[in-house]
Structures are given as structure tokens and as C-alpha cells.
């Protein structure tokens, strides 16, 4: 059942998000398709928020009400790659299937081109088996550029990845 979209918000991370952060970043089902190592303690959660989330060029806590239930990150390129940025995201298991990630990605798209004026292209790399994430991107209006064979390792396994993109001139489909 889809969540009321207005219940989802994005905001910067806070140290006080540590317990919420641990509850999803410590869940193998959530980190399965991420390059992260699953967090194992509150100390690791605090350190990650302090050392990675807060200084990050663009990482937002995905919140339902005031509870942090996921993240979305944008990494812009530099030099000749400054026109593109990579997007990554995850959502806590108990919030899957409700449109939270799609809502969070749509909100990120509405902000990020203003925050990074050089960026004209947002791209996402998605495992060929990660159907749920492919649906998130498609519902948010991304185009599938192609299949990149044996592109990268994920937790020791060589992956075929789909590359998706969304341009500053593309339109987010109506809800």
C-alpha cells in the first residue's frame, strides 16, 4: 500500500539518527545491493554518520515523520565528468513496497540540479537482479541506457549492471 507522499521528507543527517540508521544499515537485506559493509554496532553507526553522512557532498536522511528510514546520496563528478552525478539510496525493510524510495528519489531529483548547477545527468547503476530498485528508477522517470557487462564487484561477486539516467531536461512522471 502506497504511503501518503507528503509523509516522506529529506533532511541532512544528525548524530541523533544513529539508532534509526543502525536499524536499516545493520540489516543485510537492506545492504545486500549496496557496497557498504553491514553495520554491526551503534558506535559504527555514529562514526559513519559523523565521518561519512554529514561531510558528504549530498546525502540526505529519508524520513517518515521525523524518523530516519533510509538515505539518498548524490555524488557529483569533477573535471570533464562534472556534468554527471551518481545516485544511490536504500530504505529500511519495513518500509519497502510503499513507494518510499520512489518518493525519495523524486524529491532528490527536484533538488539536486539546483544544488549542482554543472550537473546535467544523474545516473544509477543497478544490479540486473535488483528488480525492486529498477522499478523505483523507472517510476521516477529514469531511462535505461544499457547493460554493462561484468562492470564491477559487489561484495566479491562480479556484476552485470544496468545503467539508468535522468537528465535535468527530463520530466518526472506524474504520481
Amino acid at each position, binding site marked *: 500500500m502506497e504511503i501518503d507522499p507528503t509523509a516522506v521528507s529529506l533532511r541532512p543527517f544528525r548524530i541523533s539518527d544513529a539508532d534509526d540508521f543502525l536499524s536499516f544499515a545493520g540489516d543485510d537485506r537492506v545492504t545486500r545491493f549496496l*557496497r557498504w559493509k553491514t553495520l554491526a554496532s551503534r558506535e559504527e553507526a555514529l562514526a559513519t554518520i559523523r565521518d561519512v553522512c554529514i561531510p558528504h557532498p549530498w546525502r540526505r536522511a529519508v524520513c517518515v515523520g521525523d524518523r530516519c528510514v533510509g538515505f539518498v546520496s548524490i555524488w557529483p563528478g569533477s573535471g*570533464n*565528468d*562534472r*556534468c*554527471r552525478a551518481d545516485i544511490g539510496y536504500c530504505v529500511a525493510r519495513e518500509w519497502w513496497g510503499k513507494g518510499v524510495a520512489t518518493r525519495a528519489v523524486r524529491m532528490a531529483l527536484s533538488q539536486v540540479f539546483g544544488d549542482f548547477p554543472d550537473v*546535467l*545527468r544523474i*545516473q544509477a547503476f543497478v544490479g540486473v537482479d535488483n528488480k525492486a530498485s529498477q522499478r523505483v528508477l523507472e517510476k521516477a522517470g529514469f*531511462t*535505461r*541506457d*544499457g*547493460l*554493462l*557487462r*561484468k*562492470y*564491477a*564487484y*559487489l561484495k566479491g561477486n*562480479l556484476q552485470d549492471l544496468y*545503467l539508468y*539516467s535522468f*537528465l535535468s531536461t527530463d520530466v518526472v512522471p506524474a504520481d
Partner: protein
Amino acid sequence: MEEQKQQTAHTSGGAGAISLRPMQLSDVDDFMVWANDPDIARFCTWEPYTSRDDALAYIAGTILPHPYYRAICLDGRPVGSLSVTRNEAASDACRGELGYVLGSGYWGRGITTEAVKMAAAEVFGGARPELERVEAVVDVENEASQRVLEKAGFRREGVMRKYFVLKGRTRDAVMFSRLSTDDDS
């Protein structure tokens, strides 16, 4: 039948013997011929090398320590170069990006295609044992370069819109790849 025999003696287009070898500082004058060619620089992100000292510094600082950088030689003389990058992140170590350049006086004879085929065989044959994938990113307007890759057995994977900036303009690019497991069927 005789024509086929001539083609397999790796003298593509009757141009002479093509070979790959590591670059040396003493290649600097040959390097400057292609590094100064505006027809080539059009699709390249670098500016022409007008100074011999800059060229020497580039050979010493970037080319000699490179994980895979080769001179493309015609009858033993360097007429171009190619390279396959190495990525820093462990998760990206399986792939390297191929780039190549050939002096414009030698275009249209199949030299680059042959050189790319030889490089893929070397790279996957032991020069870069960690690589599973060699990829190439080509400007959508650079049709000659796309043909090189197609003829060299690379697969076209898709078009990436507004992928990079070239001399101040945003460009669409085509992604090509060849895997260590691909064969030439």
C-alpha cells in the same frame, strides 16, 4: 583464396607490419606528431602538446609508469598509441578503459582496428590478469572510432546522454566493451 591469405598475415590494408611495444623517452619526437595533430585533438580531452619538454614530462610522468600503455608501430616506427587504465577502487578493478590515438596520416587503413585487437589479446592474455572487462567511451559523433571498436569485436552497450564535457561542451557517448570471455564469433 590468395586474398584471404594476405589478409591474415596481419598487414592490414597493405600498410606494413603493425606491432605494439612500450613507449620510451626516445619516442618523444614521434609522439609529438600525433599529440600535435588538431584533427586528433578534436575528440580528445587533452590540448595539443606544443612543447617538447611538456611531452617528455608527460612520457616520463604518466606513460612510463602506466599499467598498460603501448606505442602503435608501423614497420617499427611509432605512429600512435593506446592505453588501458587501472581503477583505484577494489570494486572497480575488474575493468579498464581503453583509449587510442593514431596520426591522421595513417587513418583509413585498419591500423587502429588491428592494434586494438592485439591490445585486447595482450591485456586478457596476461598483461592485465585482473581485468574481466575492457571498455571504451566514444563520442556519438566519432563514427570512425565506433567502427574501429565494432570491427575489433567490442559490443555496443548503449548511449549515455550528456555523459562528459569536451572542450566546454556536454557530449553524448556510446559505451563499448569486450570481456575476457568474449570470442570473435
